[in-house]
């Protein structure tokens, strides 16, 4: 049965291993946004011997690029971007210790294999619900690559940020199982 969890981020690997595909989660704590250009820069930086802009061990990476904040608000709309575009980089970030990705849409077998190997989960947030999701962000700071604009790495403090475990650390995958129940 689907279970409900309140998770704190960073997310320890013991917690990761008890999550099952289909569970609903509310995430509180620190998550980092990174999408196409930030991933490219992070991996290029690593190859040149630089450190990543945040502590990646047990981290939660949110594939997202927020809209700008209005005055007096921490952030603008911030829903997930499509995850497969980060497939080239995700096995590397998983190896370095990422515990969870928040995104939307399918990811490759290579990434899922790495999730199983290094114990991580893939959490789906509702794509296109950026205004609603922004209400769960209480702090927002650009910590790397400000020159990338919307694609900079943001450190977000979130409270009860809602998601669904789409792929768990054993490779169970809602994108593979759920449509079959409704297929005619």
């Amino acid at each position, binding site marked *: 049965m689907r279970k409900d969890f309140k998770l704190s981020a960073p997310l320890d690997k013991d917690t990761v291993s008890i999550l099952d595909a289909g569970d609903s989660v509310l995430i509180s704590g620190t998550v980092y946004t990174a999408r196409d250009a930030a991933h490219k820069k992070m991996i290029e930086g690593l190859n040149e011997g630089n450190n990543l802009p945040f502590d990646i061990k047990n981290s939660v990476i949110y594939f997202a690029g927020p809209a700008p904040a209005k005055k007096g608000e921490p952030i603008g709309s911030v829903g997930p971007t499509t995850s497969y575009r980060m497939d080239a980089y995700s096995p590397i970030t998983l190896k370095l210790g990422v515990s969870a990705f928040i995104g939307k849409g399918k990811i490759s077998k290579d990434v899922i294999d790495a999730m199983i190997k290094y114990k991580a989960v893939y959490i789906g947030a509702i794509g296109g*619900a950026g205004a609603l999701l922004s209400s769960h962000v209480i702090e927002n700071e650009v910590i790397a690559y400000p020159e990338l604009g919307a694609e900079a790495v943001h450190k977000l403090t979130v409270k009860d940020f809602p998601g669904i475990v789409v792929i768990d650390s054993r490779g169970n995958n809602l994108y593979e199982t759920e449509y079959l129940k409704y297929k005619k």
Partner: protein
Amino acid sequence: MKNIHCKDITECVKNLCIKANCILNDDVYAAISKASEYEESEIGKDILKKIMENARIAHSEMKPICQDTGMAVIFIELGQDVHIQGGFIKDAVNEGVRLGYKEGYLRKSIVFDPLIRKNTNDNTPALIHYDIVEGENIKITVAPKGFGSENMSRIFMLKPSDGRDGVINAVMESVINAGSNPCPPMVIGVGIGSDFEGCALLSKKALLRPIGTFSDKEHLKSIEKELFNKINSLGIGPQGLGGRFTVLGVNVVCAPTHIAGMPVAVNISCHVTRHAEEIL
């Protein structure tokens, strides 16, 4: 002959950029609402309700419905009896996009070169499609398009012998391939005929037709109905997590083409299918 000043064009485009991105059109909202009533999947139903709540928050706070406020795709129907004063129409439109994306706190998502990839930081240039029409008005339609769904769009250069089945198969293949990526429930624009670039433009224009309406051409209407039912039998469902509603609407348009060909473009859009228009 009517004079229209560039500053009015700029003001209009600015306002339409903000409106289109923050206020979900009634037809799309109604389609989501109806889907939420009939959705059989519990997760799917919950997602659809949250999507509606999101739209209401976006409207009341004038925040973008989706953070991907898109490439500013702009259709201009320029009456041939209009005289534009005070500058160049293209500059006026781009200035409107620049101001709209700044003042509306919309995301700047355009890079100046596809390989060098440096952000222009003001969401320009807009992608502007001009049509010269009769009359002395300018109709401006701003249709911001996010790339989560745009990336899933396809073009098929079919043969005449592929016929109606070829069209159906092309759309089904595109939707199955897209799966959970383009933020289902989707809206699908299909352009049939014209040529390679013409069918793509037709498919984008098809997305402007209100959801829940059908083509006035019987042969296209039957394709729309068949595709709607077939796609919603795939089970992909809201956000790809299973369910009855994978698509909110399928809009098909066609145009004359060559004796040797039958181009088909499938422009996939998301549940935040947006546009706003105004006549000057």
